């Protein structure tokens, strides 16, 4: 049975924890709004880009001269997994879920006898995967210092990935990130970026365009930019998901702390009552004995 003083200390410590989690939740809520705005702002670009690329790609996919970024290297032996996670923890299962998906994927590929290479973005995921698949790491991108993700960050990653592709380091690249559904649900997603896949919904009306310079030249120019665009979209989705996950995790923590305080308070009151009753009994029995 803890003493009254112990209980009091514990209540005080849980209360200050609750204050911290509450503050973190509110910070995450504010950041989430900003991250969502950023994701929203990038959507028109990404959508139009993919629509145009879809049209171009459906025209070029069949031809033998299609760029390698579109048609692939003709092999699927070496896979590059780009695993994007957060730089900070305390966001529930966010990092773990992405890492788990990537790990399952990697293990399945290894079991098939493929070569797996892993590029990590964000150090939390790196820590999680390191234990099992540390030998497969080929690089790491640190975004700790980045406050607001800009297109330049995505371009840097894309440049790195494209340089590896040009050097023949891998055949297929897949991005792992969490797609933002809403505040309570974020889905870990795998998205193949090389060779590029586009929704070829309305390829028919795309064929009506004039192209300047030639169709092939445009495709060759835009495909590398497409990789950067996909990475940028994934980074933004991830940022929004991270804040969403953190917000709900901290909301839970705040609620748990509240429950704990209630329980401890009840326990505290009970033992205080017991102490008072004890003292009364002592006084009364002392008086009776006289």
């Amino acid at each position: 049975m803890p003493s009254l003083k112990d209980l009091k200390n514990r209540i005080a410590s849980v209360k200050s924890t609750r204050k911290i989690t509450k503050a973190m939740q509110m910070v995450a809520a504010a950041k989430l709004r900003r991250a969502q705005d950023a994701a929203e702002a990038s959507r028109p670009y990404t959508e139009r880009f993919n629509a145009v690329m879809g049209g171009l790609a459906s025209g070029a996919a069949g031809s033998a001269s299609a760029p390698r970024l579109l048609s692939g290297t003709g092999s699927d032996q070496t896979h590059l997994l780009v695993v994007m996670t957060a730089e900070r923890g305390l966001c529930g299962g966010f990092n773990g879920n992405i890492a788990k998906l990537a790990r399952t994927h990697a293990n399945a590929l290894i079991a098939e006898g493929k070569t797996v290479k892993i590029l990590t973005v964000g150090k939390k995921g790196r820590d999680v995967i390191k234990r099992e698949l540390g030998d497969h790491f080929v690089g790491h991108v640190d975004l700790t210092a980045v406050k607001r993700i800009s297109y330049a960050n995505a371009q840097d990653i894309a440049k790195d990935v494209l340089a590896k592709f040009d050097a023949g380091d891998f055949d297929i690249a897949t991005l792992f990130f969490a797609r933002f559904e809403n505040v309570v649900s974020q889905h870990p997603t795998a998205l193949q970026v090389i060779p590029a896949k586009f929704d070829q919904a309305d390829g028919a009306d795309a064929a009506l365009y004039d192209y300047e310079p030639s169709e092939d030249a445009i495709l060759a120019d835009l495909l590398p930019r497409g990789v950067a665009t996909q990475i940028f979209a994934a980074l933004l989705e991830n940022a929004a998901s991270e804040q969403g996950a953190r917000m709900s995790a901290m909301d839970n923590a705040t609620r748990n702390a509240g429950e704990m305080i209630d329980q401890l308070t009840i326990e505290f009151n009970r033992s205080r009552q017991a102490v008072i009753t004890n003292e009364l009994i002592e006084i009364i029995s002392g008086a009776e004995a006289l």
Partner: protein
Amino acid sequence: MANVQFDLVSPERRLASVEASEVQIPGADGDMTAMAGHAPTITTLRPGLLRVVHSGGADEYVVSGGFAEITAAGVSVLAEQALPRAEMTQEVYDAMIAEAKAAMKSAEEVFKNEPGPVDDAAKLISDMVAMGGHIGLNAN
């Protein structure tokens, strides 16, 4: 006269969405002006000035990289880098030039025996210099 719906978007934000009477685009193969009823065209961009004429006057933007999609009723410009001309300062311009020069250098190293990419990078720089001269900034 009929107007076209003009949209200018960069990956980070939507810069403009207005009804325009004409849009001058710095296409990779040369400048072109799009007005209502233009044949559907897709063109890549070179670094340059994009000029939009609409009922409230004319706006100018500095764009670099990306493409423009022109249809009879609208013009969408998707630029990797885009800023209103007023925000184009000497510092931003210097950064762009420095980046282009770095790209040229790496192209020279990687493609020693293939002139294609090196020429492309050189053209990028000369386009930027030309654009700077046009808006009164000097490259050094």
